[in-house]
């Protein structure tokens, strides 16, 4: 099961694992997993307040979350998702966030998960 906890655990494992670093970028893979976790938390949390959100995209959900979730979860998720998205899209000139930044963003997602 790809629960947020599992995804975040796998992300951390990737970052902590001594992989042969030339094959792939562990921070990038970890960011992809963490963003999936953030999105899962976002949807679950929003559903609690708004009912079904299947057809609402993530950006819209984040706007709602920031407005609705007054325990700070929305803000945490917004920060984490935007940060992780920088690692999950090809930017015009920015390089992918480094491992330390991804690790910090995973921390944000974890905190948002605990708030739920």
């Amino acid at each position, binding site marked *: 099961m*790809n629960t947020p906890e599992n995804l975040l655990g796998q992300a951390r494992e990737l970052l902590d694992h001594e992989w042969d670093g030339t094959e792939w970028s562990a921070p990038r893979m970890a960011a*992809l997993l963490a963003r999936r976790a953030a999105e899962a938390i976002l949807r679950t949390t929003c559903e609690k307040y708004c009912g079904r959100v299947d057809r609402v995209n993530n950006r819209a959900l984040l706007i709602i979350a920031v407005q609705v979730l007054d325990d700070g979860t929305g803000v945490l998720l917004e920060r984490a998702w935007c940060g992780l998205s920088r690692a*999950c899209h090809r930017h015009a000139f920015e390089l992918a966030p480094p491992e330390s930044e991804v690790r910090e963003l995973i921390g944000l997602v974890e905190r948002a998960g605990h708030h739920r």
Partner: protein
Amino acid sequence: MPENPADTRLISLVRSLLNRESPPQDERVRGLVLAALEDEQRLRAALEGSHTPVTAEETEDDTRQHTTPAGTFLRGIEVGGFRGIGSRTRLPLHPAPGLTIVAGRNGSGKSSFTEALELALTGNSYRWSTARPALWKENWRNVHQDVSPTVRVDLAEESAGDTRIEVAWPDSGKPEEHRSTVRRPEENPELPPEWHRALELNRPILSYEELGNLFEAGPSKLHDALAKLVGLEQLSEGTQRLDTLAKELSAAEKQAKKLRGELRDDLDHSEDERAPELRKLLGKHKPDLEAIGGFVTDSAASGGVAARLRELAEPVLPEQADIDSSVNQLRTALGEAAELVGDSVAGAEQRSALLHRALELHREHGDQPCPVCGQATLDAEWSSRARQRLDEDEQWITVARQAQEAVRRGAEQLRSRIARVPALPDTAGVELENLERARRARERWATPPERDGELAEHVAATHPELVAAFTELREEAAARLAQYRDAWSPIAEKLTNWLEVMREVRSKAQDLKDVRGAHEWLRDNTKRLRNEHLRPLADHARRIWSRLRQQSNVDLGAIELTGNGPQRKVALHADVDGAESQALGVMSQGELHALALALFLPRATMDQSPFRFVVLDDPVQAMDPAKVDGFVQVLAELAQDRQVVVFSHDDRLADSARRSNVRARILEVQRGRNSEVTVVNSDSPAHSYVSEARAVAKSELDPSVREAVLPGLCRMAVEAAAWEIYSAKRFHNGQDRDKAERLWTEHKRTRARIGLALCGDPDIDLDFWLEGYPRRRHTLGICADGTHEGLKCSAEEAVKSLQTTIDDLLREPR
């Protein structure tokens, strides 16, 4: 010859200017100018004639041969436990001309490589010596790894081989306590001396901070850096050497002038009769040293008091022994003559003549009465007696005559001795107590009796008085002369010094003239020389600026070194929309950075430098994005015969290189857990993502992980390919980079980005493209839904579809 190629170039330029002079400079002056640019020893040798610098112009080939040393390239930089790098990591570099771009986020460890390189080569770091050294020194060891800090730089030198520089620190050492070990071909443990000079002058490593400080340090610093760079230090040193030598040579002239002044003052206050004449001689433009030399002794004053005293002080009397001898001779002669008294010689001669006639008469006419007495008879008997008498008379006459002659000679000798005592000279101006007595004694002495018989007595009587009077006079005159000389001696002494110095001045006059000539030439031509020498660098800087300026309205004009001392500066002339101005005053911060680069790059890539590499640490940090493409072109041009390594905090440079036809090796530095730094190839991001996706698909990762990450990697690969197409199209059409980047960032969906790549329109309906090939739609589906929902097909299928789509997309015309 100088060892530094910059100096050799300067000498060639000086030689050329000297040979172009009209009228031409004297050969010796030309030699002195050139020797002055070498060193002091050679300059002095040239002056002495034991060193003859070549004054003829060299051919261009000769010059090039002197100025191009063997090239050195970087083979790699390996760093461990130092700054941002934990485990030992190597940045491999290809030791040949070409462009290498190393991208890495701030904090990725990329600057640690440049700092390590700088440290290995120079023993220092720009950051250590500036900015916040205390902070730097506290954090120079990598905190994550328990690894001893080490730096290893490998270089390849043409025609020599590999050089390795290793830097290590003791366990608890401070950063400056590092030890460097050099391994060079033939076990040479020293770096070549020309490397040290080139590291200072042609600095091949430049950081962003240093770039910013190039203009901050003040105009004189920039002036000095450029002046030193093009060997103009040698020019000012040469001028200084000639100036020092001219001063040294003219020291005698100065001293002579000073002494002459003092002498003239002394003479003005002297009552000596020689003073006015000497003063007049000294006042001449070119004083007659021989004539003036007479004044050191009193020989010059022939008609003056000194001359008169000197005359009186001279011994003029005949020797006593001579006088005594002459007197005795005369007396003896007189005594001998006196014994013959009884008949006069004349009577004896007449009598002899009469007897001769009488005998002749008898012989011719026979016996007859004496015609004189008339009583006696002239007969044979008489004739016999007469002949005997005649013989006796003639003998006596001879003896008497001899006695007379002895008296005459004796008297003559004595008179001559009397006459030899000259009359006392005119003594006007000289008052001597013994003069009158001497004069009187001499008068008595000089008026001898006419009779020879009294002469000896006269001499004997007057000589003692004469000797006594003259001796006293001479002693008095000598004493007076000594007084006279004593009064003159300070002047004479000074005059002696002056003459000695003047002789030196005269002997060195030609040397001084030539050295001054050489000094004036070099001084007067300094401005011309320094700007002519700077010209190639200035031209190169302008060419670079013209590539970097892009939309800037500032056109860089002449670059000149102007002013002296605290006023020295680099004049960077600019043309701002047709109006003349100074570049530094009208440029923005970003433009100043670009200008600094334009000045740095020619400096680092001059032929004189043995380093064929240039390392730039994040030069684009403050650069207007619009200038990046021009900058890549500049780097590519440099990379034709230089190894250019550029570090960058973002992907703009790499991106620009990928898009253009520039051949570049692109690496990315990534910093992982515990400062594990990796260097990966980043030539083609789209293909890299595909490779990564393939690696993930084939990996033993948990399937749920593979399914979760593969769609994201697919999307990144598609977006990377789309950006490559989109940016290439936009930039090749000359469109603004800022706008293109903004549009890309605003449209985050993969479809919109493909729309931008294909048609420049993010909202275009992609059906025309999706229908062209089935895998396109499949891949886009993975990118869109899979990223959020997970992979719906097998990992292998996803990668195959991705590969095809990427290849397909990258074939799009740009």
